[in-house]
């Protein structure tokens, strides 16, 4: 067992990255993720690892691309407007198949918005946001413990599939302190024959995304498609919280799911059977599991800290077989337990 400590979400994520063997971290200041950079700036030099504050989020993510292309474990972190800038590199990283880990502690938007926790980046981070046909693997932790565990896992999975793994948290999770058992290093490592280490004793190799010749890009896109199918088959994660006997299913991820769980406990005290279906991976999305969990229920309520972005995936999973309602608060607002409870009570028995 690892050490049990009280950590802020940001610090837990940073420590987990260090445990995972992240040797290169590239920073750019933005609230509410600054504790990640501060933690790394303090710890990495002492571990003889590389911390560097870049000139922009764009540069920071391209430094990750360059470092990771040589085979090291590299990471950057940011919050919504900064992630918008990193999206450029996301696309290149996807096309060039370089493993990378990025943390997004979402804040309110659009634009500069505010610095409160929010879930307005689902569309940008889960459905893409940058050019071309690609996916990032997206983890949505809901507790500091899970944030640490998934950050560690993200490095292994990114390396396994040569994919960008994104931790999609929010400002509340980032700033919240909770007890957390530091994860043990997994020890998982994948061979990297593709890494750029100099053409010594082998042919020179290139990491790139440009494929100009007729039909070549399509072949590469098909290769990526196969990889994404493998990720979809093996990496879906979700939590089924009291859904089996429930009449009403609440669907929420991250911080919003905590509110839903509290509402479910209250509802059950009142004899209303409700449960929470919580996607942990947002891509790949647990369509089948949600479809199964929602089958035969009276109502599905999607709860988000946004105007309704994951809602579309919930509707896709449920396919109209059960009515889907939505309760969301954008701009840093968090749905209150009372609101969620009242909404479910309004459905009647």
């Amino acid at each position, binding site marked *: 067992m690892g050490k049990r400590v009280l950590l802020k979400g940001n610090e837990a994520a940073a420590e987990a990255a260090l445990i995972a063997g992240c040797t290169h971290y590239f920073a750019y200041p933005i609230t509410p993720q600054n504790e990640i950079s501060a933690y790394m700036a303090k710890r990495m030099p002492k571990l003889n690892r590389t911390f560097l504050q870049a000139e*922009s989020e764009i540069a920071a993510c391209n430094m990750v691309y360059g470092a990771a292309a040589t085979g090291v474990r590299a990471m950057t972190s940011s919050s919504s407007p900064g992630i918008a800038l990193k999206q*450029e590199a996301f696309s290149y990283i996807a096309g060039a198949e370089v493993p990378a880990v990025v943390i997004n502690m979402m804040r309110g938007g659009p634009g500069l918005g505010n610095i409160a926790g929010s879930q307005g980046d689902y569309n940008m981070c889960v459905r893409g946001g940058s050019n071309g046909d690609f996916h990032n693997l997206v983890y949505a932790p809901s507790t500091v413990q899970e944030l640490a565990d998934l950050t560690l896992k993200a490095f292994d999975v990114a390396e396994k599939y040569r994919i960008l793994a994104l931790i999609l948290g929010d400002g509340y999770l980032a700033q919240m302190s909770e007890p957390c058992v530091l994860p043990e290093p997994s020890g998982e490592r994948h061979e990297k024959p593709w890494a750029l280490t100099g053409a010594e004793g082998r042919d020179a190799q*290139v*990491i790139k995304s440009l494929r100009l010749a007729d039909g070549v890009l399509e072949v590469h896109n098909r290769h990526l498609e196969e990889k994404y199918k493998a990720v979809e088959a093996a990496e879906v994660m979700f939590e089924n919280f009291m859904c089996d006997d429930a009449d009403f299913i609440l669907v929420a991820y991250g911080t919003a799911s905590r509110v839903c769980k509290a509402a479910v406990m209250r509802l059950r005290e009142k004899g209303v059977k409700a449960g929470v279906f919580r996607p942990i991976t947002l891509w790949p999305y647990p369509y089948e599991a949600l479809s199964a969990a929602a089958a035969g229920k009276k109502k599905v309520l999607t709860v988000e800290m946004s105007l309704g972005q994951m809602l579309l995936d919930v509707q896709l999973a449920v396919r109209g077989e059960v009515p889907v309602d939505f309760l969301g608060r954008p701009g840093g607002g968090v749905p209150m337990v009372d609101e969620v409870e009242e909404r479910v009570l309004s459905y009647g028995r």
Partner: protein
Amino acid sequence: MADKILYTRPRSIRDVKTHYCPGCGHGIVHKLIGECLDEMNCREKTLLVAPVGCGVLAYNYFDVDAIEAPHGRAPAVATGMKRARKDKLVISYQGDGDLLAIGTAETIHAANRGENITVIFINNAIYGMTGGQMAPTTMEGQVTKTTPYGRDVTDVGYPIRACELLNTLMAPYYIERVSVHDVPNILKAKKAIRRALQNQLDGKGYSFIEVLSMCPTNWGVDAQTGADWVRDVMMPYYPLGVFRDKGTEEASRVQ
């Protein structure tokens, strides 16, 4: 009697057809870098960063490990590579749009950190790959696809001098501007490139070589006229020479 080899393709350059246009300077600079890598026995430790622009296909010609950077981000990608592999020779090869327009921030900050990399900057006063649009280095009055009436400096500003700009920073170790419009200058350019690469091997820090180069296709001229235009139009505005050489400064302090 054995034949004396006067000229051969460097080992660091692949035996492939070029996509560069007749009279273009890229091939010359590629060859110079390749020769330097051979002479320094560095081919196997080189990590090349290719830009967006005509130089994007540099990895088709150099027989070294290479990566393709997003437009303008080559110095950031090079920074990541060098920080991860300090024992490798990292070269950021960029054109004028890449280095001085979309990548200005990355250029200045890599230089300002004194990043131990070598930047080779091809200044041909135009965007080549996209068919000849105004670059940050396009000359006053120069006609391009996006300045059909000539570059109006009162409207879009003056051409930027990269060496002079970077020479305001404290950290860079070596800054030089050379040209490849004729043979004597090509030889000087090679010396400069060799020096810039050696500085990196010696752990000295950031070296920047600006190469004035020809783009006859997009300038709408023949190869010789292109070379003459570098000499007659570009060189008066972009003077050749060493702007920064901390090596010489160090040596003179010792005396």
